[in-house]
């Protein structure tokens, strides 16, 4: 039934049409951050323009107070230090305006004394120099004190709660000054560290140490900022300038945890530590050499692109025609990209040019196993275009070999080999062996991964190939270790937990992790271009809206651009934060990752991201929500633009890039988050299916960027087998793209698999088993924090901080928490539902009876979910809209007992209530 509804909603490869006219690939290169200049400019909204003058005024007043000329650059180093010291002193004065004058003055210094310079470079140089002085003299910690004070005043009861919609820029004036200074210092140090500037080395090290250790009040800076977001989302502090908060949080986390390079090194370091080989393939590097495809990624398409003036219509017709034999072949052979399917394709393609056939066979050439010759190499060979089957260039180092392109055909970049080494999991090998043994010897050897006795030669070969491609992930090892510890809690030795930055962060956010995730997603939702701002319980626009609404058309155009830009920046920062945390937790310990991702899933992250992509994505990628002339520092340096004219607003169109860096960045981040959440989780793949993600994702393929497409294709690949034959039939091009771009899993029948382990029951079990493992991990490693977390949940999200105003989202939070803690919804058991689990886990860990305890617990949770309607498959399937934060979310539904349950409730009562033993003393 599930599949039939999808079959009805199939769509054709309609976007072929504009594939050819979409223009060249985006030259976007994915990185941790945009350029330093852009990252700084994005800190300010255009409506904050007038405040720059306040900073220079504060500086002038302050210098007058000191009887000095208002010129920073004329002061010698000693005098500069002395001035900063005096300013810092002034930051501890109780008179607010006087204090803020000093703060603004420091902001002016951090901004690089722009009033005294002629060029952006000078300004940057000044910022660089000043940040050293500022940081050395303790400005950063002083500003954190100031931030504490602002948070405190925001939450004191004597401030009458302002209506959310009435909050404007003015309400956050002071706190924005403080956050700006913190941000500039952080970002400048991050940038200089990246560039390995010598004068910054020592300073950067101590700064990283500082942000990775708790503040004097015991809180981590990142946690403080997450707390601000949570508070903001609860409605208690609507004036918090969210954009600056998330930007600062992002940069603090990025600097504290480390970016992509650090991640890569850490991953390999951890892998080596547990006895695995380091990874040589780097997604970034490989995708850089990949060519973006707007399906069809066939050679004909490429040739068309080479001669764009050629008969466009003819090619279209040809492609349609081309489709059919291919489909038939595919169906008949039932074998992805088998040699048969090439024939139809290449013979037709041969009409086009003489060497078309060669290229096609090259394109479809079966993967040439690199590990057969040199094992462990990655296989991103790109051979020069005209090579036939035999002219493949040897590339022993497997460097991305763009240089090998023959100059004669520069546009040809056909991946001659598959870009990725295929992988296979131990589980798959076992399955393969099991099937073969059953077939040939007639019985199975459970737990034997190797013995081939009695199996025919071809199976031996197959087994060897599989073995050669076996990939053991870090997560596998960590899970195994956890299992060992659970089985033999006393004899198994766990190494001392190293306090890595990620570990510190995890321990710090563990008690409130669900709330933080919800808050982050709420902000993300509010900033999504598809969200309707009216229905939101939070107003993220507070820090862009000026007190006086614009009067002229120009001004309102400007404001519209500003608001769009504001939202984009928030999406960029939040998506980057979530991805960064997921990635770091994943390598630090997979269950930390699973804990976070499960909470993201519970908070409806998957539909949220899908909804984000349910827009004209090419438009989003190309949006020009920026006015370069108004970006800092150009808005204050040099000749001032005529702010009354119309011209400056449209200045942005002349920008050199045909896409918006931050939007592509956010898109990729969100896709990667989705991939991280869903990979290997059947239940979540089904969410992709039931939310009808396929058409949305296919639209996303229109963006011509290889890396972005890769992540979309991965998402499509996961669900292909559930989409039905009809869908596959009409989307062969997409399937081809998947085949050629996404890593192959040997034995994985992703496209045509009929082993639909699709009973919804199983999915719930899967999620519950995972939950149980994560809980056991948390309870074992962080007993205190978990207890706190559990207590909060048992009480029913009451501790969410002040503003429990009964919005839908809040309900979702409540329901979600009780759901997660396996209360079955019938009031009296709700309170001890968690305790039950807790005790059985704890008891198991101590007494070595984990198996029975765990099984029992799983059963119970399963039951609870079933009763509560954890994932009501039939409901969601008929759901056309997205379940959003409690808007018809699956957890805040009224309890409806199934007929089966009603008929057999006595059995349930007997098993789960009367026979379940609770050790009340252990609670």
């Amino acid at each position, binding site marked *: 039934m599930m599949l039939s509804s999808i079959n009805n909603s199939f769509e054709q490869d309609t976007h072929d049409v504009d594939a050819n006219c979409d223009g060249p690939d985006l030259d976007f290169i994915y990185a941790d951050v945009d350029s330093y200049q852009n990252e700084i400019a994005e800190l300010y909204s255009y409506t904050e323009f007038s405040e720059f003058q306040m900073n220079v005024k504060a500086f002038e007043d302050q210098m007058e107070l000191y009887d000095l000329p208002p010129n920073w650059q004329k002061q010698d180093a000693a005098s500069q230090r002395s001035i900063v010291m005096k300013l*810092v*002193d002034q930051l*501890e004065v109780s008179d607010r305006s006087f204090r803020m004058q000093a703060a603004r003055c420091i902001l002016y210094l951090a901004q690089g004394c722009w009033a005294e310079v002629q060029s952006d470079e000078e300004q940057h140089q000044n910022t660089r120099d000043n940040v050293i002085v500022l940081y050395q003299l303790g400005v950063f910690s002083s500003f954190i004190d100031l931030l504490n004070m602002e948070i405190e005043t925001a939450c004191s009861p004597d401030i009458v709660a302002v209506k959310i919609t009435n909050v404007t820029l003015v309400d956050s004036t002071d706190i924005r000054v403080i956050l700006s200074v913190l941000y500039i210092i952080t970002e400048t140090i991050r940038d200089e560290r990246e560039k390995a500037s010598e004068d910054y080395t020592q300073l950067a090290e101590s700064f990283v140490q500082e942000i990775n250790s708790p503040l004097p009040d015991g809180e981590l800076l990142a946690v403080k900022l997450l707390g601000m977001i949570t508070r903001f989302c609860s409605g208690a502090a609507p004036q918090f300038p969210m954009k600056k908060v998330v930007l600062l949080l992002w940069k603090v986390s990025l600097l504290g945890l480390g970016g992509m390079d650090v991640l890569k090194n850490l991953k390999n370091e951890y892998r080596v530590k547990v006895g695995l080989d380091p990874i040589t393939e780097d997604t970034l590097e490989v995708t850089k050499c990949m060519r973006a495809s707007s399906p069809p990624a066939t050679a004909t398409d490429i040739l068309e692109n080479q001669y764009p003036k050629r008969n466009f219509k003819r090619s279209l017709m040809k492609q349609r025609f081309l489709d059919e034999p291919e489909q038939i072949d595919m169906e008949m052979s039932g074998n992805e990209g088998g040699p048969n399917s090439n024939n139809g394709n290449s013979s037709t393609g041969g009409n086009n040019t003489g060497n078309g056939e060669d290229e096609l066979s090259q394109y479809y050439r079966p993967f040439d196993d690199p590990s057969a010759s040199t094992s462990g190499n990655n296989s991103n060979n790109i051979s020069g275009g005209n090579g036939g089957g035999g002219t493949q260039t040897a590339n022993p180092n497997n460097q991305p070999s763009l240089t090998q392109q023959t100059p004669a055909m520069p546009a040809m970049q056909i991946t001659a080999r598959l870009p990725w080494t295929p992988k296979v999991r131990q589980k798959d090998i076992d399955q393969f062996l099991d099937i073969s043994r059953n077939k040939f010897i007639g019985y199975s050897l459970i737990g034997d991964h190797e013995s081939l006795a009695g199996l025919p030669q071809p199976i031996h070969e197959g087994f060897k190939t599989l073995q050669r491609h076996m990939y053991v992930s870090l997560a596998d090892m960590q899970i195994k270790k956890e299992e060992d510890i659970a089985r033999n809690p006393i004899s198994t030795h766990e190494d001392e937990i190293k306090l890595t930055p990620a570990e510190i962060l995890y321990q710090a956010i563990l008690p409130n992790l669900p709330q933080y995730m919800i808050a982050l997603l709420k902000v993300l939702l509010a900033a999504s271009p598809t969200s309707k701002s009216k229905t939101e319980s939070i107003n993220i626009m507070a820090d862009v809206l000026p007190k006086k609404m614009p009067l002229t058309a120009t001004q309102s155009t400007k404001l519209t651009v500003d608001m769009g830009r504001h939202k984009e920046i928030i999406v960029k920062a939040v998506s980057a934060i979530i991805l960064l945390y997921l990635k770091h937790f994943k390598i630090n310990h997979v269950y930390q990752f699973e804990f976070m991702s499960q909470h993201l899933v519970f908070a409806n992250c998957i539909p949220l991201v899908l909804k984000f992509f349910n827009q004209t994505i090419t438009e989003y990628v190309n949006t020009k929500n920026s006015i370069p002339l108004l970006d800092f520092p150009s808005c204050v340096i040099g000749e001032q633009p005529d702010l009354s004219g119309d011209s400056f607003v449209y200045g942005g169109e002349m920008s050199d890039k045909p896409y918006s860096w931050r939007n592509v960045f956010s898109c990729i981040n969100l896709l990667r988050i989705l991939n991280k959440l869903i990979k290997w989780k059947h239940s979540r793949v089904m969410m992709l299916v039931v939310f009808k993600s396929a058409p949305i994702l296919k639209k996303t393929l229109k963006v011509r960027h290889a890396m972005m497409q890769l992540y979309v294709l991965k998402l499509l690949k996961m669900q292909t087998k559930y989409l039905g034959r009809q869908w596959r039939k009409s989307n062969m091009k997409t399937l081809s793209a998947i085949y050629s771009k996404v890593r192959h899993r040997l034995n994985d029948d992703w496209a045509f698999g009929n082993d639909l382990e699709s009973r919804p029951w199983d999915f719930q079990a899967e999620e519950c088993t995972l939950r149980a493992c994560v809980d056991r991990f948390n309870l074992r490693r962080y007993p205190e924090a978990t207890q706190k977390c559990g207590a909060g949940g048992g009480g029913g999200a009451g501790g969410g901080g002040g503003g429990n105003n009964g919005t839908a989202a809040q309900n979702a939070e409540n329901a979600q928490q009780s759901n997660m803690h396996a209360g079955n919804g019938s009031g009296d058991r709700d309170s001890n539902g968690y305790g039950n689990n807790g005790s059985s886990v704890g008891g198991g860990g101590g007494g070595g009876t984990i198996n029975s305890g765990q099984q029992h617990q799983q059963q119970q949770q399963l039951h609870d979910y079933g009763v509560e309607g954890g994932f009501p498959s039939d409901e969601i399937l008929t759901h056309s809209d997205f379940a959003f934060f409690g808007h018809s979310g699956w957890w805040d539904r009224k309890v409806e007992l199934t007929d089966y349950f009603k008929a057999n409730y006595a059995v349930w009562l007997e098993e789960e209530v009367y026979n379940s033993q609770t050790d009340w003393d252990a609670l």
Partner: protein
Amino acid sequence: MKMADGSTILRRNRPGTKSKDFCRWPDEPLEEMDSTLAVQQYIQQMIKRDPSNVELILTMPEAQDEGVWKYEHLRQFCMELNGLAVRLQKQCSPSTCTQMTATDQWIFLCAAHKTPKECPAIDYTRHTLDGAACLLNSNKYFPSRVSIKESSVTKLGSVCRRVYRIFSHAYFHHRRIFDEFEAETYLCHRFTHFVTKYNLMSKENLIVPINEEENAAPGESEA
């Protein structure tokens, strides 16, 4: 520390030591101090010998780590400032001095709390000294007294800034107590020299006048 005759000198104030015998043990050259607290011992020894000789006390022995030197001095200042705080308690109460001020211009916030707030002067004094003691003894920032992390050295500046306000409050509001205390210990004088020498505070913020000619002269001649 074995002496020539084999008897051991314990450089400690045992219970029952008379006040005139307090800390009365023979000086020991720095090189022979065989403990992790050598720098502190050396500084205390110098102070005991002649508290007015500020210059000499602040002269760093050769081959001494500057971070440790600054740290140990600041520790010593905070310890001795407790003496001033005790004296101030007699006169300075939350009812008389409701705010932490020096000259009337500025009221300072007490930074010892999670959120800085206005405390009465005497509370500011206590809180700040407590906070400074906590920080300087914290395992996190100052795990060792032999070498100091670069990142922690920056913390010293803020301690100085906050602690100095105790001097200035005493000077402007409890002049008699300040003068008595200063005459005995030369603490403010030494502190001023210290922060100027190591550039920990801005000169303009050092608002307590110290009599340079009187005190500096002997220091110069002996140094």
